[in-house]
Each structure stands twice: as structure tokens, then as C-alpha cells.
């Protein structure tokens, strides 16, 4: 159990997908202007990432590895991720129309979020078992959501603060992202042993 918890923490903080591995930077910069949309994006990505890493494990161990087709990994993972995203959209639309309206435009964007593909690929590379893959995906997604929320909150405050004209807008956003990334590198010192 504690091992599982460490996996979650490690994926969420120490090896944070956005700020340490620099994956999924497009939604990180693009959808972080408002706190609530950032949170929605984070939650939708959490759902897809967890499902996709599980689907990736099944695909790898049921199809690709037995047939010796590991070189098809990237291509087939993208195929599966796209299908999972489409399926997620259908389910959300069926279950909750308001949620679909909030997440609507973000859901197809997740297909092209490289964090989803990256986490599935990393999980295979690290030879995780099925539950560990699921945990690794969920932890990474939690880390993604956390960073999205933190960054969106920072940017909401930046929007009302006095920024020198040369840095206004995206530049100060990049600087803040860099500082945040430096901060997250500090988690590398966490001793889990």
C-alpha cells in the first residue's frame, strides 16, 4: 500500500509531467487563464490519462509484446488514446450535459496532449504492472491537475498586478512557469527510501 502511495506521490510531484518532464505544455500555457477552466481541463485530462495508461498496458501486453510489434507502440497508442477520448466524450455527454458543455472544447484537445501519450509510453518503459500503470497514470494526472490549478491561480493574480510593459502577457507567464518548474525540481530531494 505504501509503495502504491509513493508511486502516486512520485508521479505527481517528483516526476511531475509538466514541470519536470515538460510534457503537455500546450494546455499548461493555453488553458490556464482562468482557474475554473484550468480545473475542468485538469479533471478531464485526469480521466483520460488514467484510462489511457490502463489501455496502453493492455495493448502492450495483450497485442504488441506477444506479436513482437513493439515498434508500433507510438502509432497504436495514439490510436487507442484517440478512441478513449472519443469514448469519454460520449460518456460525459450522456451522463451530464452541463459538464459536457464545460469540458466540450477541451476534450478533443486532450487527444493531442503529449502528456497522455508520454505517460503511457513511460509506463511501459518502466515495466509497471497493470495496477502500477493505473497508479502511475492517475498520479501523473493528479500532478498535471495540481500544476494547472496552481499556474492558473498565479496567472489570475498576474492579470491584475502591475507588470512591466515589456513582460506583460505571455512573457511573464513563461517566467512564472520557469520559476514554478525550479520549485518543483526541489521535490527531487524527497527521500522515499
Amino acid at each position, binding site marked *: 500500500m505504501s509503495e502504491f502511495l509513493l508511486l502516486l506521490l512520485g508521479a505527481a510531484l517528483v516526476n511531475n509531467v509538466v514541470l519536470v518532464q515538460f510534457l503537455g505544455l500546450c494546455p499548461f500555457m493555453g488553458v490556464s487563464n482562468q482557474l475554473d477552466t484550468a480545473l475542468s481541463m485538469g479533471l478531464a485530462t485526469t480521466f483520460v490519462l488514467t484510462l489511457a495508461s490502463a489501455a496502453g498496458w493492455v495493448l502492450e501486453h495483450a*497485442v504488441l509484446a506477444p*506479436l*513482437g*510489434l513493439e*515498434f*508500433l507502440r507510438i*502509432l*497504436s497508442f495514439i*490510436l*487507442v488514446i484517440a*478512441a478513449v477520448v*472519443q*469514448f469519454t466524450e*460520449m*460518456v460525459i*455527454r*450522456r451522463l451530464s*450535459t452541463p459538464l459536457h458543455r464545460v469540458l466540450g472544447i477541451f476534450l478533443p484537445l486532450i487527444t493531442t496532449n503529449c502528456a497522455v501519450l508520454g505517460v503511457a509510453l513511460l509506463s511501459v518503459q518502466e515495466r509497471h504492472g497493470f495496477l502500477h500503470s493505473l497508479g502511475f497514470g492517475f498520479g501523473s494526472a493528479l500532478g498535471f491537475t495540481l500544476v494547472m490549478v496552481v499556474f492558473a491561480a498565479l496567472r489570475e493574480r498576474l492579470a491584475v498586478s502591475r507588470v512591466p510593459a515589456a513582460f506583460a502577457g505571455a512573457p511573464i507567464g513563461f517566467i512564472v512557469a520557469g520559476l514554478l518548474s525550479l520549485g518543483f525540481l526541489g521535490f527531487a530531494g524527497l527521500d522515499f527510501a
Partner: protein
Amino acid sequence: MYTAIPVLTLMGLALGYALGMAGRYLKVEEDPITGEIEALLPGTNCGQCGLPGCSAAAQALAQGQAPVTLCPPGGRELARQLAQKLDVQADLSALEADTGPVFAHIDPERCNGCTRCFKVCPTDAIVGANRQMHAVFPEACNGCGQCVAVCPLQGITLQPPAPSLQSWRWPLPETH
């Protein structure tokens, strides 16, 4: 490589089939009236009703949250059709000033070819190029007026269509 081709093909077919079945089972029953109303609306998402796009407007209309007179490009005729479709009494007094369809008209004396108007046109009814004079296709224009707002030279006006052989009438007698 020869295993890769059938495996990928099968995978694509299986996923496509699964998604198709999921789409059938998870189908959302939409109110058919919403689709019918959306078909009546211009469909250009110009946003003048204050709602985000024509499908949102159709939903608001179907739920009775918006008046049938909400669509300025549709004008009086659309309000009449919507009232008929929804079986409500339309209050057309707000459209008293609506005397018929209007189309954008670019004043050739003023146009300097800045291309701003055709970038905002939701129906691609304006043709032109940088530093070339622009013109409007009345067949495609729905009179939403977005180009009027962006023209930096106030060179676009909404005008009724030029009289044709079918629409020409004797002018009303004038008293002096």
C-alpha cells in the same frame, strides 16, 4: 512487417466498431424541435442575439427562454416562422422598424482594401484582397452587420436590395 499491417488494420476496425456501437448505445435523445429551429436560424453564429451561436439560440428558443424576435439578421420573417413553429403569439412590435431584408453595401469611394470586413464576415459574403476594393455578394450576405462595426472608414452600410424586375414597385404618391 507483415504482421503489423493486419494488426493495425484490425485494431482500427475494432476500435471503430466499438466506438460506433458506443455511439449507438450512448446516443443522447435531443429534442427534435431544437434541430428544426436550428435549421430555420441563419446558422452563421454571428452572436447578435447575445447567445454563443445559433445552436445555443435554438436551445434557448426551444426551452422558451428567449423571445422569437431574438435574431436581428432573421428579422420579421424569421420571427413569424419561429412563432408558427413554437405555436406562440409573436410580439412583432420590436421589429416595427424592420422593413425587409437588408444587405451590406461597401461604398467604393471609401473602401481602402484593409480586409477587416471580410475577416469578420461569418458567411464569406465579402470578396477582396489587401489594397483591392472589396465587394459584397448579396446572395450570401445575411445582413448581420458585423462588417459595419469593423470598417475603419465607415464605408459599409446596410441597404435594402436594389430593385429587380420582380421587386420593383411604383413609388407611393408624394404630397408636397
